[in-house]
């Protein structure tokens, strides 16, 4: 490469870098630079194409994990500050795409975060991951975990949430959504939510919960206490005939400790409220009598199993 090309390339890289900045405003200067030499436009195009290609490579690369296995020791220094910010570039197209400028926010187990968007407040529970759009605050995708949505209704711009294959549309709302290995759960505290407005269009009203389980082609509607919806934010988890598998998953998100229900107790129903504030070790020990199970700890995770002996009276 001769010197002239080399210089054009270096300058083009500089412009490509700056133009990617969301606040870039030197369009006139860029125009002048492009006009100055016919090599510039081609070099700029190359630099932009390199950026595009890099996006594909970066997306294909393993994500620098912000959701480490529970209680993993601190990682290397540089990545540390980054992960603490908990805003990670995981999924999503770049700001170069029209309109959509997605970014992902993720929490570690036990960590919660509140996101304030225009017209909506989203509380993200632990071990959860949501993708939002900088250019469209009325759109979100819950990738996994749980979030509580407080949405100001706007009939012209309904708030739309994508969860797996399902779409939810708010009808003026406070609602909680969980997406994990056991499927989708939508609990509504106020107002109503439309489930798949273009297909089934099931209306979930306050005090109702919709459940969609993987591999089942029907959804179930049930009753909940609307006051308990999003209770995890205040350190209260309310359950109404919830299987222990669900209780365990909810506790995992809130406590930052992996809790699993053994197969023999996973389907057992539990009704009650668990306070997750306070001493974690005590709380875990108390799960035994509370859930009528045996609590076994190994390698920092907790397994709930059936009690070995029948209690005598």
């Amino acid at each position, binding site marked *: 490469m001769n010197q002239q090309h080399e210089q054009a*390339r*270096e300058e083009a*890289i*500089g412009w*490509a*870098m700056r*133009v*990617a*900045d*969301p*606040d*870039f*405003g030197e*369009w*006139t200067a*860029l*125009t002048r630079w*492009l*006009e100055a030499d016919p090599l510039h*436009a*081609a070099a*700029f*195009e*190359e*630099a*932009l*194409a*390199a*950026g595009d*290609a*890099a*996006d*594909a*490579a*970066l*997306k*294909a*690369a393993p994500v*620098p994990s912000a959701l480490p296995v529970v209680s993993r020791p601190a990682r*290397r220094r*540089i*990545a540390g*500050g*980054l992960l603490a*910010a908990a*805003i*990670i*570039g*995981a999924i*999503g197209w*770049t*700001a*170069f*795409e*029209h*309109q959509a*400028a997605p*970014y992902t926010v993720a929490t570690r187990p036990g960590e919660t975060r509140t996101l304030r968007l225009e017209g909506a407040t989203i509380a993200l529970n632990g071990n959860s991951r949501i993708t939002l759009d*900088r250019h469209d605050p009325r759109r979100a995708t819950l990738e996994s975990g749980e979030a509580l949505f407080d949405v100001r209704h706007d009939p*012209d711009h309904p708030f739309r949430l994508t969860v797996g294959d399902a779409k939810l549309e708010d009808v003026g709302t406070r609602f909680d959504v969980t997406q994990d290995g056991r499927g989708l759960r939508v609990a509504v505290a106020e107002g109503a939510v439309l489930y798949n407005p273009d297909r089934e269009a099931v209306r979930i009203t306050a005090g109702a919960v919709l459940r969609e389980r993987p591999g089942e082609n029907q959804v179930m509607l049930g009753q909940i206490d609307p006051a308990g919806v999003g209770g995890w934010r205040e350190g209260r988890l309310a359950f109404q005939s919830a299987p222990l598998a669900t209780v365990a998953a909810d506790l995992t998100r809130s406590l930052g400790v992996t809790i699993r229900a053994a197969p023999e107790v996973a389907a057992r129903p539990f009704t009650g409220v668990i306070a997750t504030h306070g001493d974690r070790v005590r709380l875990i020990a108390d799960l035994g009598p509370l859930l009528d199970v045996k609590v076994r700890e190994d390698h920092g995770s907790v397994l709930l199993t059936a009690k070995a002996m029948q209690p005598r009276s």
Partner: protein
Amino acid sequence: MGGGDPRAADGLQAVFLANRPALLRYVTARGGADAAEDVLHDLWLKLADARPGPVANPLSYLFRAAENLLRDRHRARRQAALRERAWTEASGPAAPGVSDAPSGERALIAREELARISAAIGALDERARAAFRLHRLEGMAQRAIAAALGVSLSTVESDLRRAYRAVLTAREGDDEA
């Protein structure tokens, strides 16, 4: 009430009309001389459809939108060129018996290039990789990246520059092969 706030679009359209010459000059300088008028027309139509919300800096928004339209066109052209080349190679007489479908060939080219670029990015140090990722996928401003990584702005700039250079070199490897 009818949807949206008509003033927002009118506002942008007014800014468009006032700055049309500057936009045209930019699109032309970007190498879109023959299609410059088309691009601006598309932009005008988009403004009428899109009804963007309040825009902090309308002129910057318009340049950005024009740039996006240009980029779509360039991408489409690159794809077409790649298809053309793949088809010529796959159907040329130089490789009898090798009857890979053009689409398969295309995928192979893309995969090889992707692998080269991934290797080039992987060869960067961790800080540069992190900065590049935040820059490309998060669309974070350089200043914000500097804050997130706890380094100076000039460090971020030189990290990003190295990353771009590495990807450009990896891509050039394609043409020399």
